[in-house]
């Protein structure tokens, strides 16, 4: 395993120690940090490795939230609802991917963006099943105390993050990762050497969906109430892209760091500029991308040191 992958696992292990240090706020922040990292690492499979700019993350997230939410309402246990959301998202996304990923560049971006809109409309109109625009109440998981429940959902989200990170590491070193790198660089040449591009792209799309759906399911159980405009919010599609760009495309460590950095920025800016927080956040992101175009992972202490010596 490479050093950067070990660093990623150490980082994730460090996040697990969070409940030792803080109260409810730290747990909430930690849960969202794990969620963000799941979204960014998943997006990276199709966006960073295969080079397809997917805006479908919100669709996967909302799908997971509703699939798990509806099943929990029917009395399924949490683990079964999450497992169903994960597997069905993988299958559905792989099937959709085989069709959608025939489009390239901007065309693919728009098509993937519409996926969330389609699902949102479906949920809005399937009132009997989903409650439509009224939203969906999800029964409380247990009678345990507030802190116990917060801790439980933190670790559930953390578990999904760990699974996503392991997936990202395994894919990176596998035939699939190699194939996606080929596709990103030259899709025509890829099929010329016998690479079944449709198959690999579909697999990548499926993998980029399943853990996002799992996270969506846990999110639904955690907040107890979801509605279409919340879980199909386009920001769930945009944020992971920004995180991955901030962290450095392609490298799982960089992408996870980008997710944590983004959350930090979001929190700080939100607290200090409540009126204009989105504007300030946007400005900060532009500055970061201007001055660190290859993301955080291009920022190496040893490189700075070497440059200083030549002065």
């Amino acid at each position: 395993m490479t050093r950067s992958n070990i660093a990623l696992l150490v980082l994730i292990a460090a996040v697990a120690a969070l409940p030792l240090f803080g109260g409810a706020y730290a747990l909430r922040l930690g849960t969202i940090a794990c969620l963000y990292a799941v979204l960014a690492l998943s997006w990276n499979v199709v966006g960073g490795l295969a080079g397809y700019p997917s805006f479908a993350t919100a669709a996967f997230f909302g799908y997971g939230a509703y699939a798990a939410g509806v099943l929990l309402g029917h009395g399924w246990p949490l683990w079964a609802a999450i497992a169903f959301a994960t597997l069905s998202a993988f299958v559905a996304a792989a099937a959709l991917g085989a069709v959608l990923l025939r489009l390239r560049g901007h065309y693919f971006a728009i098509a993937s963006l519409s996926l969330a809109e389609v699902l949102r409309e479906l949920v809005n109109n399937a009132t009997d099943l989903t409650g439509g625009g009224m939203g969906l109440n999800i029964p409380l998981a247990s009678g345990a105390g507030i802190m116990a429940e917060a801790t439980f959902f933190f670790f559930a989200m953390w578990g999904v993050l760990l699974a996503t990170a392991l997936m990202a590491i395994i894919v990176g070193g596998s035939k699939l990762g190699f194939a996606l790198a080929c596709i990103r660089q030259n899709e025509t040449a890829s099929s010329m050497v016998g690479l079944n591009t449709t198959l690999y792209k579909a697999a990548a799309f499926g993998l980029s969906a399943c853990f996002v759906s799992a996270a969506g399911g846990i999110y639904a159980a955690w907040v107890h109430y979801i509605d279409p405009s919340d879980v199909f919010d386009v920001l769930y599609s945009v944020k992971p892209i920004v995180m991955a760009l901030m962290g450095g495309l392609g490298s799982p460590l960089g992408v996870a760091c980008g997710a944590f950095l983004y959350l930090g920025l979001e929190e700080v800016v939100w607290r200090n500029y409540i009126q204009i927080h989105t504007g300030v956040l946007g400005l900060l992101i532009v500055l970061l991308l201007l001055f660190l175009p290859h993301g955080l992972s291009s920022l190496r202490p040893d490189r700075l040191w070497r440059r200083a010596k030549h002065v």
Partner: protein
Amino acid sequence: MSELLRLERVSRHFSGLQALRDVTLSVARGEVLGLIGPNGAGKTTLVNTICGVTPANSGTVTFDATEITRIKTYQAARLGLSRTFQIVQPFSEFTALDNVAAAALFSQPGASLKGAREAARAHLAFVGLEAQASQPAATLTLAMRKRLELAKALAMKPKLLFLDEVNAGLNSAEVERATRLIHELAAGGITIVMIEHLMKVVLNVCTRIVVLHNGTLIADGAPREVISNPAVVEAYLGQKYAQRSAGHG
């Protein structure tokens, strides 16, 4: 000699442009066939049509006793049809080694990444690029990238190899080197169809030549006969010149 590839009345058009018109062609096992013709004659389209990039609108393509007219590109590659591109198509961020490994990995079912890299090293050595194995493809010279294309094509263990202008843009020493490689390949038993503009190379290497002009085959035969064929001279140099050279002859 048994037949490896057969085209039966193959046509392909791009909306209004008829790129190939009723091309019927047979390639025998072990042959080195030269495919020549003026610019825009449809030579690359013919290769693309056989490899499944731009499938034929009508007619049939048969390879190794299997009909492959509507085959997908990656399936053609796995059947043993491989090609080099006129405009080189490397995976530019990959090292030379990984470029070739990709070809070995995806064209052979069940291949592992490790095994593919080992095989790739041998193919790089064959084309004389072992010193550049760990260099990104983007940093190689044009001549090296052409040879990298060749190594990639060979890593796919082809039965039939299309060489699309492997010598274009090379200096004479490089051309000589590439020609030697082609000779070695032919001696190794790979059937080769080469698109080539350099007559010296064509006459030196090919056992048979076909000439494509405006999407139609206008000549087919032994190299010396074909290049003195009036129809071929006319296709290349125009009617006036053809009459003049016929007069002189």
